[in-house]
Every structure is written in C-alpha cells, then in structure tokens.
C-alpha cells in the first residue's frame, strides 16, 4: 500500500517521469529549443507566430504577440506599433523620410569602410584616392556608392521637405518637427559639402575655396568665420583636417541627434500626418473608417521597409558598378584656377544668386534670411487648413519657390553669364582642363602623328573619328568672332607610349573699338592661345 509519504511524492515522481519521457521525445525538445532561439532573435515572437507572419496570416494568439517585440527590442521600441492606413499611402509620403534616414545609414556604413584607407593630409589624401581606386578590392564600388548616396541623400531630403510643405504637414502640432527638419536639411548639405573637399582634387579644392570665400563676406566677422573654417587664410592642411573632422565626427553626431529628435516627434508624439483629404475632406464615413484602420508595423510595414531597403541598395550597387562613377580630377593646385569652376549642384542656386549682385547681400544675408524664413514657416502660416484648395496662396508660394530655385540653379551654371574668350572656349570644349572631352576620348590610339591646320585641311572621303574632330575644330575656328583666325594642331610621339598634341589658335589683334592693331613695322599684331595635351597609351577614361 502506498503510504502518505508516497502519496506526497507521487506528483514529483510523476513530474520526473514525465520529464524523462519528454526528454526522450527529440522532436519536442528540438522544437522547444528552436522556439526559444526564435523568441530571442525576434525579440518576442515564437516560431508559430513567425510562420504566420511569413504566410501573411493574422496573429496566432491574443494579445497580439507581434506587439511584444515593440517592448522587448530596443530598436523596435522606437518604432510605432501601427500607422493609420492612409498615412502609409505611397502617394502621400513617397517614402522620402524613410529614404533620407536610409541614405544616412548607407553613408555611415560605406564611409566607415572608406575611412580605413584615408588620411586627411594634403600629402596623402589624393594618393589615398588613387590607392582606393587601384589597390583596394571593391574600393571603386564603395567610393562610387558613397558619392552616389551623398547626392541622393541631398535630393531625397530636399524633396521630403517639399512634400511636407505641399501637404501642409508642418502645421500644428508638428511645428517643432518641421524646425528640426530644417536643421537636418542644413546638416545634410554641410555633410555633403564637407565631404567634397576630402579627395583633395581640383574639383574639391576650388568648390570649397569658393564656398568658404562666401563666409568671408559675412558682415563684421567674415574674416574670423573664414579663418575658423579654413584654419588659415587659404585652404591647406589645417582646412582639410577641419573639414574631415566635421565630415566624419561633428556633423554625423549632430545628424544622429537631430534625426532622433525628428523621428521621436514623428513616431511617438504626432505620428505621420494623415492625407489632408482624409483629415478634413468630406469623405464617406465608411471610406474614412477604412482609411484610418490600423496597419501594424509587424509584419506589413516592416516587410515593405526591408523590401525598399534592398531595392534601393541593389539599384545603387548596379548604378555604381555600371554607369555611375564618382569624379576624381587632377590633384588640387592652389595656383591653377580651373576654367569652368562649378559648385556642387545643390549650391548652383547660390552661385546663381551671387551673379545677381553684391556677394554680402546675395551670398550671406539673403540666403540667411531664406533659411530663417524656412524655419519659421509653421509659425508664420496661421491658416489651420491643409487641403490645397483651402491654402492656395501657400501652395502657389511653394510652386513659385521651387521654380525660382530651378531658374537660379540654371543661372548658376558656368555657361550662364560668363564670357570665355572664343579661342579658349573652343580648345576647352575639345580638351577641357578637367574631365575627358572628345580629344582624350580618342586617346593615344585615336590620334595620328603630323601637323594639321585649319587653312589647308580637307576632310577625307572616309573620315576617322579624329578627322571629324579636327573638321569640327576647323569649322569652329573659322566661325569664331575673330579677325583672320588660324588654328593648328601638331601631334608628335614624344615617348614610345606618350603622344603630345600641341594646339594653337591665332588671330589678328583688334582694340576695343574694333580696329586692327599694328606693330612698329606696320604688320598686324597676332594674338595666340596655345595648349598642349598629353595622351598616354594606358590612360582609360570611364
């Protein structure tokens, strides 16, 4: 008979027995172990739930285990559990905010790898670029992607702002979110611009020289601001180090801080704004109910974000591997000002404004006021409505401002409003100081030896690429607004692998009133413009 003690022990024995039995059921054990791991990895969802997610089934239990992730995981706790359906419509946000943050992430990852191969001194910076391009596996791909990402980030951030303005999403209670957004736009522009100097090529050096020379025009403290940025009256070792530290440390930290504030406001405080027609339009109640239904982040929006991330990074990779190539001009030469100096495209509007008047007004005070005005938009605009038809003036202002920026950008191009002497222009178009141009495109193998002049040259019946190029040169020299123009190319083989192309355009000198200038012997004075281009057998332009 069983004693009392045995009775007491029975449940424990049974439990032990059951445990032993269960431990022999390997399938069960494996399932439990896997389940435990899955819970750890997914921060709360078991394998059953994960399967349901992938199948697109509703949650398996109540309360929704997918929400648990938002409490367990640090990264997911920042994200909201759900959005109203209308806020996730593609045509409402175009995913521009998400893409801005994603570009920042890509820049950080590619930038960190590039930092390994870079030292910020004038002696090493440019050689480091050559090393990255010709000695580092995936070096060119990474550099191209970093550069492409920078351009895209500026574009996406600017478009994001335009979208928020156009949909009136900056209005109460989101004024402060807009303000942090304006700061983030500034950080993005300065991040991109500070990275511009680091390759230490002509493009970098002169774009930044022009950019910082605008700081020089700041009223009262211009000299000090300029000195603070450049570290010396001219950009040199000090300036490069300052820009480097700004680019890799100061601005990214500031960017992370402001992105955090900006995103906290969006995700935790106010959410993404609803489209104006859902919020204040006269929508059918059923339709409105549908439009404001909750869409859970897990799994619907998370899969969408992952899909977008992969799509964008693959597109960027394919672009970088095929058509896109980050420019690298010749090494910075402080005493050689390039002919067609160009700011980065996102500052063309500023270059355009500078052509309109006094640099202090057009380059510092007016842009400063524009930034202030931009930051103050939600505080100035007291119209509570968001629908375009209820704020026609604000929408018109947005459209006009966009058009104005585009026109100013066009005016900022070096081709606009800057006269280059005709001979210089012709030769610059054929063999630009920087970049490729048609002559270098022909290269060593494409040019014959000999002397060619515009007076006697005749296009042969079956012209080569070179013949066509020289014929074009001949036409342009003859049509140039010069008196008795004459052009000549002398091509010789200087070294077994190096051809020398000496180009010359000469013309009769005229004074300001159009009269021919004569020397003391009574012969007309000839002016000449010459340039020598060297073509090496192994040079490849992509």
């Amino acid at each position: 008979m069983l004693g009392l003690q045995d009775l007491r022990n029975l449940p424990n024995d049974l439990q032990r027995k059951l445990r032993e039995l269960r431990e022999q059921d390997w399938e069960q054990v494996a399932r439990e172990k896997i389940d435990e791991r899955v819970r750890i990895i997914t921060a709360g969802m078991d394998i059953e739930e994960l399967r349901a997610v992938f199948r697109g089934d509703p949650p398996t239990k109540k309360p929704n285990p997918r929400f648990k992730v938002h409490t367990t995981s640090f990264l997911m706790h920042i994200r909201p559990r759900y959005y109203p359906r209308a806020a996730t419509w593609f045509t409402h946000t175009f995913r521009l905010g998400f893409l801005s943050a994603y570009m920042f992430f890509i820049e950080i990852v590619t930038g960190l790898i590039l930092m390994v191969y870079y030292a910020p001194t004038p002696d090493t910076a440019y050689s480091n670029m050559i090393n990255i391009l010709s000695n580092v596996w995936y070096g060119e791909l990474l550099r191209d992607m970093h550069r492409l990402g920078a351009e895209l980030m500026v574009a996406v951030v600017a478009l994001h702002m335009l979208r928020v303005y156009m949909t009136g999403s900056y209005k109460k209670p989101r004024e402060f979110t807009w303000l942090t957004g304006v700061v983030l736009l500034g950080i993005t522009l300065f991040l991109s611009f500070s990275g511009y100097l680091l390759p230490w090529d002509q493009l970098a050096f002169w774009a930044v020289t022009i950019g910082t020379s605008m700081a020089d025009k700041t009223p009262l403290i211009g000299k000090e601001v300029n000195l603070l940025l450049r570290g010396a009256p001219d950009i040199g070792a000090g300036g490069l180090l300052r820009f480097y530290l700004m680019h890799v440390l100061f601005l990214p930290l500031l960017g992370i801080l402001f992105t955090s504030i900006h995103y906290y406001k969006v995700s935790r405080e106010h959410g993404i704004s609803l489209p104006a027609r859902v919020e204040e339009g006269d929508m059918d109640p059923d339709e409105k109910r549908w439009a404001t239904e909750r869409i859970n982040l897990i799994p619907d929006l998370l899969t969408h974000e992952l899909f977008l991330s992969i799509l964008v990074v693959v597109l960027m990779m394919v672009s970088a591997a095929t058509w896109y190539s980050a420019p690298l001009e010749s090494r910075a030469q402080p005493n050689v000002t390039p002919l067609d100096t160009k700011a980065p495209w996102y500052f063309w509007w500023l270059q355009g404004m500078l052509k309109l008047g006094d640099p202090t007004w057009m380059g510092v005070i007016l842009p400063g006021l524009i930034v202030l005005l931009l930051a103050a938009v939600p505080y100035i605009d007291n119209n509570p409505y968001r629908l375009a038809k209820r704020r026609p003036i604000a929408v018109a202002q947005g459209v006009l401002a966009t058009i104005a920026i585009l026109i100013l950008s066009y005016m900022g191009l070096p081709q606009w409003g800057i006269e280059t002497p005709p001979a210089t222009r012709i030769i610059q178009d054929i063999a630009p100081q920087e970049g490729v141009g048609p002559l270098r495109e022909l290269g060593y193998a494409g040019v014959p030896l000999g002397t060619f002049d515009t007076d006697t040259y005749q296009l042969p019946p079956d012209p080569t690429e070179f013949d066509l190029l020289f014929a074009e040169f001949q036409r342009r020299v003859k049509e140039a607004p010069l008196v008795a123009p004459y052009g000549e190319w002398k091509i010789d083989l200087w070294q077994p692998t190096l051809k020398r192309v000496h180009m010359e355009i000469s013309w009769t000198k005229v004074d300001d009133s159009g009269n021919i200038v004569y020397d003391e012997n009574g012969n007309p004075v000839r002016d000449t413009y010459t340039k020598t281009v060297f073509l090496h057998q192994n040079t490849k332009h992509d």
Partner: protein
Amino acid sequence: MSMVRIQIALGILLTIIGLLVVAWVGVNEPKRLEESTLNWEARRIEYGAELFERNCITCHGMDAQGVPGLAPPLNSRELLEQRAAEMGWPGDAFGYIVKTVEGGRLISSRPDQYVGNMPKGDMAMPPWGEQFGGPLTQFDIENIALFLLNFEEFTPEQQAMIEAAQQTETGGEEAAGGGEASLEERAIQILINNGCGGCHTMQDVAGMAGTVGPELTNIGAVAANRIADPNYTGEATTPEEYILEAIVNPNAYVVEGFPANVMPQNFGETLSEEDINTLVEYLSSRK
C-alpha cells in the same frame, strides 16, 4: 495581406541579385585593379609631361634633349639610370630624380659640360620641392620622375612613323606655298629647338627667358654698339658679322659681366649653313 508575401518574395529575389552583383564585381576586381593601376600611372605620366613642359624646358630643352653647355639631356631612361649609378646613388633612378628635382643642384656635377645657373652666382639647378621654397609638391615631382623614366627606346615601326610624319609635314608646308613660314617663324623655331632660350631672353618671344647669357631683344642695334666699343676683341665690322661670330666662335668676344666658355663652341658644326644664315638675318633685323 498578399502584399507582404509579394514583397518578401521580391526582396529575396533582389537579395540574390544583389549578391550576384557583388560576386560579379568581385570576379572582375583583379582585372579592374590592374587596369586602374596602369591608368593612374599613365595619368601621372601625362601630368608629369605637363609639369615638365611648364617648368623644365627652358633649361633642359623642348623635348628634354638637353641644352649644350647649360643642362644635360634627360630623354632616355637608360641614361638616367646610368647617371644615378655614376653619381653613386644607392637607390633606383626614380629616387635619384625625385631627390635631384626636390633639392636642386648646389653646384654642377659636370661643370665642364653643363654649368646651369652657376655663372649668375645661383645654384646650378634651383630646388623645386615646396619644402625648399620651390613650386612643386612631392606628388608633382614624382610625376615628373615617372614621366622621365618613361623615355624608352622607340620601336623601329614607331621610328618609321615619326619619320613619315616629319616628311609629310615639310612636304605639306612646301605645298602650301612655302611663304607660310616667315623668316621670324623659322628663326624662332631654330632658336627654340637649339635651346637658346635657356640662356638668352627675347622679351616678345615665348620660351626665350634665360639670363645666363646677354639679352637678344634688340641685338641688331646692340651689335653695332658692341663693335664700336674700344674693348671689343673680335674681328667683325658689321652687325651681321658680329652675330655670325657670336654663334660660331663665341669666345672671340665675351660681353662684360658674362662668363666665357659657357656658350657651346660648336654651333658652327651642329647648325646647318641655312639655319645660321636665317638666324643672322633675323637677329640683325631686331633693332
């Protein structure tokens, strides 16, 4: 709901495509790196040639062929390597060139052949490196060295090509009427080709900016004064004779303030009679 599954499927597909792109780029990397290395060396040679043209031709000649009496030829890799060895340089010719360009030459190592700027009381060759007050960076100087070491022998086919091009050039000019190249143009070509600009200045002629020898801007007028000078030691009686004498026998009279034995003594042999006549005619016309 189906959007989730579509996006998962497309995402997986895109991931595979992305990995394939990485693999494809990776497979091509060794070739790309090799090409890029060649390309950048080639570009540095091109840039070195540009720097050489901008800074060095006044003393070392238009084609780096050297200027007799002034500065040695540099247009042969073999020659440069040999020179580095002769000077007892322990490293390779590249280092030898870089070091020489950087710091210049305090005194000529072959004063009997090349004097450089010494007659003026300057260094034979000035320092070019920026650390010594010159205009060139380390990178620039390396480019020049790469360019100079690229002076290899022409292949026979290339030699034939060069000769063919020269023939059509002179033929072409004659066909164009011969009168195209004026006396001035021909004379300046001769002056430049023979490195006269390394030592002499003609203020209105590009490439003539040397200060080792007397200025030639108005030599036609100056020559007459020189003959009239009681200190004149030559035999010329007309400006034309004076100029001819100065070219073929420069030590007959050396202008005060300039050193003797610097101007090559053998222009009478190296220049053709036609060229000498052209020079005399042109220089005496400069008044």
